[in-house]
């Protein structure tokens, strides 16, 4: 058997397999991307006409009156996600530090596992839990209850991403710091958190993006409203709940505004994700290159 014969046979068979596999992979990619593109395209086409300054800064008007907007819902979403972020960052980052820096302790392993369970917890259940915990006790739907419910979703995400990014910080840096006579708590706060801060920021932004798109936790906690926020203890509108009610209504102008709100939500989430990818991702690669 000569060398050229051998290679000729193999290359024919290999070419066929190669072409077949490439086609299969491409088909899979198209199947995965088509729904996403259809959703984005549909939302853009139907939502864009609703977009206007009035839409962004006005209160809702009565059905089919012109000039109504969704400003209270935008405000409500920002306030509740902001409140949830304020609650989740200290708890989530603290738990993440515990998972990463005390990773050999049993409590850390067990609570880390519970944290992962909570990450995938049905959001409806979280909403009902906060309903019982806060809404029934305070006897009112409120932005406060909504924020707490969203923080149940954000905290485990932040805890996990914090612990994963701190685990990437080399042990030698911790040792270098400890060897300088820097106490452990300061080593963790200044050296470990400082080195892993891009990962932390990524986790926090992704958690914010996730919370901004949640509906179920707000349904029984913040409910909805057509008014701007006067205090945190009153029913509060949010973009997602507004989409839910408007889309189910039979008022044409509301349905059109639901599309607009959906577009706004997608733009917010896309820009958060893009920011993470482009800005933080780039500075991460730069740090590694050095």
């Amino acid at each position, binding site marked *: 058997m000569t060398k050229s014969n051998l290679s000729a046979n193999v290359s024919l068979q290999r070419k066929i397999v190669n072409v077949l596999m490439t086609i299969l992979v491409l088909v899979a990619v198209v199947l995965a991307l088509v729904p996403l593109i259809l959703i984005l395209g549909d939302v853009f086409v139907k939502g864009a006409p609703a977009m206007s300054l009035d839409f962004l800064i006005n209160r809702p008007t009565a059905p089919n009156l012109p000039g109504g907007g969704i400003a209270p819902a935008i405000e409500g979403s920002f306030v509740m996600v902001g409140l949830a972020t304020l609650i989740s960052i200290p708890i989530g980052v603290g738990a993440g530090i515990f998972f990463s820096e005390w990773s*050999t302790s049993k409590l850390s392993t067990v609570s880390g596992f519970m944290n992962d369970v909570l990450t995938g917890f049905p959001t409806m259940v979280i909403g009902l839990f906060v309903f019982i915990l806060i809404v029934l006790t305070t006897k009112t739907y409120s932005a406060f209850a909504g924020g707490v419910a969203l923080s149940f979703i954000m905290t485990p995400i932040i805890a996990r991403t914090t612990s994963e990014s701190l685990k990437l910080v*080399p042990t*030698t*840096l*911790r*040792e*270098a*710091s*400890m*060897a*300088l*006579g*820097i*106490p452990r708590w*300061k*080593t963790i706060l*200044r*050296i470990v958190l*400082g*080195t892993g*801060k891009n990962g932390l920021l990524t986790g926090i932004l992704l958690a914010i993006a996730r919370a901004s798109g949640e509906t179920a936790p707000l349904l029984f906690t913040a409910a909805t409203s057509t008014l701007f926020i006067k205090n945190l203890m009153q029913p509060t509108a949010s973009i997602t709940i507004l989409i839910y009610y408007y889309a189910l209504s039979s008022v044409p102008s509301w349905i059109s505004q639901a599309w607009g709100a959906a577009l706004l939500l997608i733009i917010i989430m896309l820009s958060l994700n893009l920011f993470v990818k482009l800005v933080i991702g780039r500075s991460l690669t730069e*740090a590694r290159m*050095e």
Partner: protein
Amino acid sequence: MTTKIRRQIRNEDYEDPLTSKHRFSAAKLETKNLRARFGKVEVLRGINLRFPENSVTAIMGPSGCGKTTLIRCLNRIHELTPGAKVEGEVILDGINIYSPKVDPVAIRKRIGMVFQKPNPFPTMSIFDNTVAGLKLNGVRDKKKIVASAEKSLRMAFLWDEVKDDLKKPGTALSGGQQQRLCIARALAVEPEIILMDEPCSALDPVATAKVEESIVALKKDFTIIIVTHNMQQAARISDFTAFMYLGQLIEFGETSEVFEKPENELTEKYITGKFG
């Protein structure tokens, strides 16, 4: 041969350590029956060593003999590794640093360390790296910090190369410069003893020569303990040499004696390259 090389490295105010004070100088640091383990594996099996003040002591031995573990026990870094345990005593100026009354954080300020791979803090500039130990230990006096940065970088023979780039990240330096930055960082805390764990193993010969130059200059003010498996390096820079094998101290003595007429057969075999 060793003396000759030493003369080449040093400047005029050369003083032969082997003939004068060191033979009688007090031990700065001493280990008494020091044992260390990782889980069930005993890595150090009872080490008794005296490290003389203002001198360079080299710890040599084949891979896995416990030399790195030994120096990591000397500043209580070993115990930070999960599953690591230490028994026995390490005595610094008459005080056992493993006594329950002693704060390991305070000990680490007195006993600095330079690691095998250069490990500057990646988020900090050259300047901030140098004075990280001061700043994070609460020193606020700006003048003192600036003065300390220059002094430490000069002592590490790095000042002339970085004085115009102090704001650049520490990780932008070459490997050899990074290692001297790490030496400067350890010096800024003003320790009495500096531990070095194979500080040149990741460096090329030119960078190694520069680090060695700074080590030799430093022993005037510090007690230096350096782990190396480069025998030429031990011969070039150390006053005393300890040879370890399988977690035990085989031989300790003045470097020239250990190299020229080793007492133990194992030491001789190692030095002549028959094993290791």
